[in-house]
Structure formats: structure tokens, C-alpha cells
């Protein structure tokens, strides 16, 4: 792990990975969108509105995946004072917040024709909304200090406190009677979604993950360069 604490080594690695992940993101997004919008069958009950699922579900997975990753990075940052772990959490936060917003908006658009309402105060929807606020709170906290280091450490503690929300979101559809349907892909006894729908869904999920990797690498690189510029300016001012 500490191999990658060296920013120069990380920069080289990121430069090597970036074109591949960016290319794969574009290819998979195009393929996934084609499959989900044209080549997959409409649902026998929901008709074409089921296609919202191919955006909504991967975005929901990503919102949890990104938060969990940020929390793990926060733990590494606090325990081992890993410099890149702090920066990773900071770089990933807006992306995660974006996925959560997409999940909430598409869910609302899907709910309007299917449930007859844009929003219900049930456990799943409310807990995802809290996740969204956690992302926003984290970003506000990180930027609230004059010393960026202190902001990121405070943010790390907040991320670890907020991790209690992740299992609540995951199991909210099982613990409470909700309007939101229970999990149908990530189940112990295998997915209950038919293959022609499952394949585009998984392609979209991989595409979203690669998009996340690409954007975070870009943001991390920018963050490191920005730091370097700041240090150079400070040394220049000191001379």
C-alpha cells in the first residue's frame, strides 16, 4: 500500500491506466446504452419505462460503492496517515454525490408513472437521501478549514461515522415494508432478473465503475499537481 504513497509513482501509474479506463468507459457506455435502450425487451408490465432501471440501478450501486470506498480510504488515512488515501476520499466525493443525485432523480422519474408519485417517505428513499446529505456534508466540511490537511482529517472521521448508513440502505427493503422493491440482483440465491435484462444492466454497472475510476484518477492527478504548485509558490514567496 505504501508503494503508492509516493506521488510521482502514482502519477506514472495513473498516466498508464487513464487512456485504457477512459476508452473502456466510452466503449462500454455506448454498448450498454444500445443494449439497454434498443436491444433489450420491454417489461411485460412496465413497458418501456423499465429502461430507467439501466441508469437507476447502477447509479444506486455506485453511490454505495463510492461511499464504502471513501470510508475505507478514510480509515487508511487516519490509521496509516496515507497521504493519497485522504486525497482519494476528497476526489471521489463529488463523483459519489453525482451518482446519488442521478439515482434519486431517475428513481423519482421512474416512481411517477409506476407508483403514481414522485416521492414517498419510505425507508429506502429516505436513507439514500441521507446518504446524499452525507456526501454534501463531507464536501462542505473538507472545504471549511484554512488548513486543507485538517479539513480532510475531519472529513475522514465524518465518513467513518456515516458508514452506519450503508447497511441501513442495503437492507432497508428487507427490514421495513417499503414501496421500493427488494433486491433482485445481489441475492444469495442468484439474481431473479431475466438474462436479456441482466446483461445490459451489468454492462452499465461496469461502465459506471470505469467512469468512476477514470474521473477519480483525473481528479487525483489534478489535486496532486495543485499541491505541488502551492508548495512551489510558498517556497518562492519564502525566498
Amino acid at each position, binding site marked *: 500500500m505504501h508503494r503508492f504513497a509516493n506521488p510521482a509513482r502514482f502519477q506514472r501509474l495513473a498516466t498508464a491506466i487513464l487512456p485504457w479506463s477512459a476508452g473502456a468507459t466510452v466503449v462500454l457506455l455506448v454498448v450498454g446504452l444500445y443494449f439497454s435502450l434498443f436491444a433489450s425487451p420491454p417489461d411485460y408490465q412496465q413497458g418501456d419505462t423499465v429502461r430507467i432501471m439501466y441508469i437507476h440501478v447502477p447509479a444506486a450501486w455506485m453511490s454505495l460503492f463510492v461511499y464504502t470506498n471513501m470510508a475505507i480510504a478514510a480509515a487508511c488515512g*487516519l490509521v496509516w496517515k496515507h497521504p493519497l488515501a485522504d486525497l482519494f476520499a476528497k476526489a471521489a466525493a463529488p463523483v459519489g454525490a453525482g451518482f446519488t443525485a442521478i439515482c434519486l432523480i431517475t428513481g423519482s422519474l421512474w416512481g411517477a408513472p409506476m407508483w403514481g408519485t414522485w416521492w414517498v417517505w419510505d425507508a429506502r428513499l*429516505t436513507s439514500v437521501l*441521507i446518504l446524499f*446529505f*452525507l456526501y*454534501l*456534508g463531507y464536501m*462542505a*466540511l473538507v472545504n*471549511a*478549514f*484554512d488548513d486543507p490537511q*485538517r*479539513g480532510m*482529517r*475531519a472529513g475522514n*472521521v*465524518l465518513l*467513518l*461515522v*456515516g458508514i452506519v448508513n450503508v447497511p441501513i440502505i442495503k437492507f432497508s427493503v428487507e427490514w421495513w415494508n417499503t414501496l421500493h422493491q427488494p433486491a433482485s440482483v445481489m441475492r444469495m440465491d442468484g439474481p431473479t432478473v431475466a438474462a436479456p435484462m441482466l446483461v445490459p444492466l451489468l454492462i452499465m454497472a461496469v461502465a459506471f465503475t470505469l467512469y468512476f475510476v477514470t474521473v477519480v484518477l483525473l481528479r487525483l492527478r489534478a489535486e496532486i499537481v495543485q499541491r505541488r504548485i502551492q508548495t512551489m509558490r510558498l517556497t518562492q514567496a519564502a525566498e
Partner: protein
Amino acid sequence: MTRFLRLVGRDLRLALRQGSDASIAVMFFVLCVVLFPFGVGPEPNILARIAAGVIWVAALLASLLSLERLFQTDYEDGSLELLALSPVPLEAVVLAKTLAHWLVTGLPLIVAAPILAVLLNMDTAGFGTLVLTLAIGTPLLSLIGGIGAALTLGARRGGVLLSLLILPLYIPVLIFGAGAIDASLHGLTPRPHLLLLAGLLAAALPLAPWAGAAALRQAVE
């Protein structure tokens, strides 16, 4: 233990001699609740229906009010650094200060709540549960709030930021607190809600001071 109690005593003395925090929290609580009849109209049935939720939301906001200064004054005059250097573990310091915060701002709310319930025309069946949920819930609010206060120590616009961080975390407390009162108003047993609330308190009691102390260490470093 004596050191812990002495810390609690110190904070209580400070709060009582300055004499503002406790009375401000209660006054805010009362005013906040009194605003609702003006907002939604004086219809007794509507007020009785929303009484539990209104009182709980007001209690939540009232406990938020003085949280900003939980560690702020000690941080500014440097006594927080001395406390961090003292043989008392920082977790115990956080717990002592949250306990004092609850005694100053939480307890008066519990006393004031039944009077406000009368004003809002709440059914008497819910009074016992109201007091009980507040008795379990307000320490929880102080504990969770303590984490936020420690995190935002030394931040720009700390107060606004504090509410942004803490209010989402308050939602479970609000759900079970108001849920218990609603259950007993509808003739159901409030027991499951109360147990969940007590479970949250049992989890927060060791974990929140721990997280708060971790955040304080970053601040005094």
C-alpha cells in the same frame, strides 16, 4: 471517576454562572412549538395530529442551538489542550462535556415538553411516552451532536456547517421518537420504537465519545 465527575461539575458551573445556554434552549424550544399553531391554523384536531412531530423537531433544533459552543470556548482559551494532556482519556472528556450539555439543555426540554403538549391539544395517552422518548432521545442528540461539534472545531462558519452535518444523523432518532408517541396515541404499544431508541443510545454511548475524541485530536494537534 472523580476526575470525570469534576469535569462534569466544572462544565455545569460554567453553564449555570453564565446562565444563558439552558434558558435560551428552553425558550427557543417553546417559541418554536408556539409558532406552529400560527402557521397551520388553530384547528385542535390538526394540532393534536402533528403535536408529537412538532415537539420532537423543536427539541432537535433546540439541542442543536448550543452545540456549537460545546468545545469552542475551551478550544479558544486553550483549556482543551490542557484537557488533552491531562491523565483523563480524551474519550472521557468528551463524554463528560456531552453529559453536561445534556443536563443543561436536554433536561429542561423534558420538563417543558408536557406543557407544550397541552398547548398543542395532544391526547393525554401520549404524555408518558413523550417524556420517555425525550428522556432516551435527548442524550442521544447530545452524543451525536458532540461528534459534529468536535468535527467543526475551528472551521469557518462552524455553526451552519454543524447543522448541515448533524441534522441528517438526527433523522433516525426523530423517526423512532415520534413513532413511539404516534403508536401510543393510536392505542398500540410504543415498546418496539422505545427499544430501538434505547438500542441507538446503547450504541452511541461508547461509540460517539470515541469518534468525538478522534475528531478533537485532529483539532488540538
